[in-house]
């Protein structure tokens, strides 16, 4: 078994075996990240491909300080952002969706109730712009100012997109919850 240090050194020398080990060790985790930024698995795997090519060819840039997994995540997230920019046609979705974003009453739900599969599906169904901001803010923990810089949008846009994304997610989760309740109620 190779340690991360050995893997990194091997990959820096373009050693095929080290590359394979790195891939086997981290591809599933990184695909999990990609899934959050995509509409489906195929798109996620596209991002994963690009990410790994970047990882293999830029591994020299990894300074060695900080966690290696953190560095890998960062590459993947950056790749996802590039991918998002490439599909900028989505930009036109945003404004009209303001009209859809329903300011209905906040649905309450039991947090522990949802499986990660369901959460993935909720994210996959989000408009790409919402999904991006939500991912970066809620999960990756970026600040709105950083997100605005990364995506080339206004800080306020990032904030408003985030709150709308939340509203849509809540609604979706609420629906899921209701479905589950009726299901389990009928079961009893």
């Amino acid at each position: 078994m190779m340690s991360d240090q050995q893997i990194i050194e091997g990959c820096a020398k373009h050693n095929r075996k080290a590359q394979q080990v790195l891939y086997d060790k981290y591809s599933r985790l990184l695909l999990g990240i990609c899934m959050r930024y995509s509409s489906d698995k195929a798109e996620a795997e596209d991002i994963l491909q690009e990410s790994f090519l970047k990882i293999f060819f830029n591994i020299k840039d990894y300074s060695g300080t900080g966690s290696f997994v953190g560095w890998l995540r960062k590459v993947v997230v950056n790749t996802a952002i590039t991918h998002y920019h490439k599909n900028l046609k989505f930009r036109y979705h945003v404004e009209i969706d303001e009209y859809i974003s329903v300011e209905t009453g906040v649905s309450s739900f039991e947090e522990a109730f949802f499986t990660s599969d369901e959460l993935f599906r909720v994210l996959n169904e989000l408009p790409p712009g919402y999904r991006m901001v939500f991912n970066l803010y809620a999960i990756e923990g970026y600040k709105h100012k950083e997100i605005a810089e990364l995506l080339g949008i206004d800080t306020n846009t990032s904030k408003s997109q985030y709150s709308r994304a939340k509203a849509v997610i809540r609604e979706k989760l609420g629906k899921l919850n209701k479905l589950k309740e009726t299901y389990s109620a009928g079961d009893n």
Partner: protein
Amino acid sequence: MKGDKEDKVLRELFRQKLDNVEVITSPSVDAIIMRRLGRKEFLRFNPARFNIWYLGGILIAGAALAVILNSGSDKIKQVQPQEPPAQAAGEMTGENRNVAQEETGVSRINEPVKSIINPDAGTKENKSEALNDLTDEKTEVRRDNIKVSPPGPVSRDGLFSESISGKDRLQGGSKASGGLIEPSVTEGCAPLRVKFRIKPGSFDACRWSFGDGGYSAETDPEWIFDEEGEYKVTLKIFNANKLLSESSATITIHPKPKAHFEITPEAAVIPNDEIRFLNYSSGAVKSRWNFGDGNSSDLNEPTHSYARFGRYNVQLIVFSEYGCSDSLTVKNAFSGSAYFINFPNAFIPNPTGPSGGNYIPKGDEADQVFHPVYSGVSEYQLKIFSKLGILIFESNDVNIGWDGYFKGQIAKPGVYIWKVRGNFLNGEPFTKMGDVTLLKN
């Protein structure tokens, strides 16, 4: 604050459940990534890694270069019509000894040419081919060259005896005399294929001159006249190396008309536009149009309306006074057609009741239905929202617009938001949005 707490709950939920989730990659993706990596690694220049692949690449490049050089020298040899045949044959055999592969290369190149010039050649040719007679192959090449650039008479005595002895359709007895040429046709449209025959007679050898610089020594040659004009074909027949007689015939090649046309408007809106076809043909007295949708016209410059958008191959066939024809087909003639979708910014619904949204393109003068003006739309989804974000109307059929009614009631005058998405017939997706003002009658 309540909002902050909820926000935190939601973030925690997604972080906990999704942050370290592993998803199994598809096996094909693993392979693709490793393959792309391998390719990228290989292309990365690294002199320290001079391996078998580089060596292989150099070998292949070297081999390719060698092949190119060899084929180049072949071509040079082919276009040397002045060379006496005997010498050429000798050279061929000499080469044959050295580079056996080259020989097949040459014959392969020649075969298609031969079949064009002499497609239904008689038994003689088949025989010699079957015998794999290298000398004969070579002569075939040379005759082709003569047609390309007439260099003057070529001595081919050796062949005469062979070709004549190979033929037995010549009947002995009757003497050679004038007017011996029997062409299959005397006039026609270019390119015209004419089969020549010699009236029965006795002779040793013959020499045809086709009037366009071409020669032949066959007893019944076939010749293709490519250009319009009058050609004087002469035939000399010899007996025991003595000129017996000379006769001639005239072949008239009529000019070919030239089909040419344009379609207007260039960016046609189908099905709405009436398409005009402009005829720029020359030398034509009659035209035949095939519009590609099953319809046709014999008018000089017809107009036509297509019922629906599609790929249409428009063909024009023109005929000259001699019946010579030419045709021009424009494939997928409306590929440059406009692909667009536009919506009006105001409309007045019919106050008497909902119409169901059906409308006639260009016919809905009163604008009582909100509908797009479009061209080349295949998939389509229209949604109309009120300012409060309520979905008022939805249509997946481009032929169904909004009649201004919502739940059986005429909608309130004011601004509504529409959003449309779909695909054009060329596969390009479109997404558009805007607002429309519903006016009161």
